[in-house]
């Protein structure tokens, strides 16, 4: 780990760049996946269409996506925006299914109760259905975030920034320490972000804890 301490300024800068390139797509992907996941649950055909499209996009190899997106979206070939768009596509492809599953798993009686209490569809979705789906969505979000953090490094092959630079530099200058340090840093970053998402998911669903405690002591019901 000596290498990291001798180059801490560079490492910090690459980590910051890495976080922006990987987490911005996760955020945009989540925001797009919620309406699409809702749409997927409306009709059987919209579900088939949305999930097949998501499956197709998820099949595309990341490096290929980084390269052939620019002519489609009209950016320059080595623009960092390409990485953000490509990873957003991945996160979206992964999360649409998760959001659709999470929403469809909300018990009907809860949705019906909300309707009976006078909730209009939009408010019912935002205040009841979406919060109830948070545990499932969080699970998908963890997979998406960890994958995105790891996938950003592939972009370094064609010159994008982030911690992947430690691999390309390690390769060109033949420094195994730099490569190992890069792998460890990416794994650590993924671990920290994963942990934070678990924490966030728990904070957003205080009722889950109450239910667990009740079922353990046998109280309630």
């Amino acid at each position, binding site marked *: 780990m000596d290498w990291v301490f001798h180059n801490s300024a560079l490492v910090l800068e690459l980590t910051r760049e890495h976080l922006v390139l990987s987490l911005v797509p996760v955020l945009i992907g989540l925001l797009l996946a919620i309406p699409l996941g809702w749409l997927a649950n409306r009709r059987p055909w919209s579900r088939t269409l949305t999930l097949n499209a998501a499956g197709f996009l998820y099949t595309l190899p990341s490096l290929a996506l980084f390269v052939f997106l620019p002519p489609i979206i009209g950016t320059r070939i080595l623009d960092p925006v390409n990485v953000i768009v490509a990873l957003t596509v991945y996160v979206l492809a992964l999360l649409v299914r998760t959001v659709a599953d999470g929403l469809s798993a909300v018990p009907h009686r809860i949705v019906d109760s909300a309707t009976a209490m006078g909730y209009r569809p939009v408010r019912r979705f935002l205040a009841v259905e979406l919060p109830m789906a948070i545990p499932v969505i969080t699970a998908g979000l963890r997979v998406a975030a960890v994958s995105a953090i790891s996938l950003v490094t592939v972009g370094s092959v*064609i010159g994008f920034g982030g911690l992947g630079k430690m691999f390309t530099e390690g390769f060109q200058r033949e420094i195994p320490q730099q490569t190992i340090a890069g792998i460890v840093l990416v794994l650590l970053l993924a671990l920290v972000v994963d942990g934070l998402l678990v924490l966030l998911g728990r904070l957003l669903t205080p009722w889950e804890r109450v239910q667990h405690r009740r079922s353990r002591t046998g109280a309630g019901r």
Partner: protein
Amino acid sequence: MTYLGWLFTGENWTGPDGILVRLAEHLGYTALTMLIAMAIALPLGAWIGHTGRGGVIVVGLANALRALPTLGLLVLLFLLVGLGLLGPLIALVIIAVPPLLAGTYAGVRNVDPAVVDAARGMGMRGPEVLWKVELPNALPLIVGGVRSATLQVISTATVAAYVGIGGLGRFIIDGLGQRDFGAMIGGSILVAALAVVADLVLGGLQRLIVSPGLQQRAGPKRPPLRLVRGGEASAA
């Protein structure tokens, strides 16, 4: 889309480093990796699923792999093993094993215990239960593991062109060096097409080898038997 001209130029397809040769290389790396990885992961996964020992490790391994940067692994193995196919091949196998292991383990583990009990009740022994009952029932998840591992390997074999092997990734890496964006974009379209076709073929294979009873498309549903007044059973 002026870039597409590269794909439709005949001379780019033939020759010692033409598209056909690179495609064959890419398929070769993928097939070789999958053979080695399956030889390791399928028996191990089946054993772990059958005995239930070490399941936590399998699931943890599959999760941890998602965070492992493939480029870092490729570069590290290149620096350790040197130029050639061996380093990238080891990296590809490392990447392919966890999804295969997880699919096989989960498949065998999730077979309905009542079905396994019935097999034992019929007098089947351990290996027989595994071969005739657990593995056929686990096939959907096993093939699922094979599909996701294959996609990972096709994708990573592309990146592996960076550390010097052949395959379709060459067009992306060399195209970048020579500022030949036509080759880069053409190569990336080919890789994407290969991944999509491979997944479709494996999906078709899945339909062929998985028992129809497990695919929810077992032909027209037979109406359930219903007891009618008088105690006679008849089809409703």
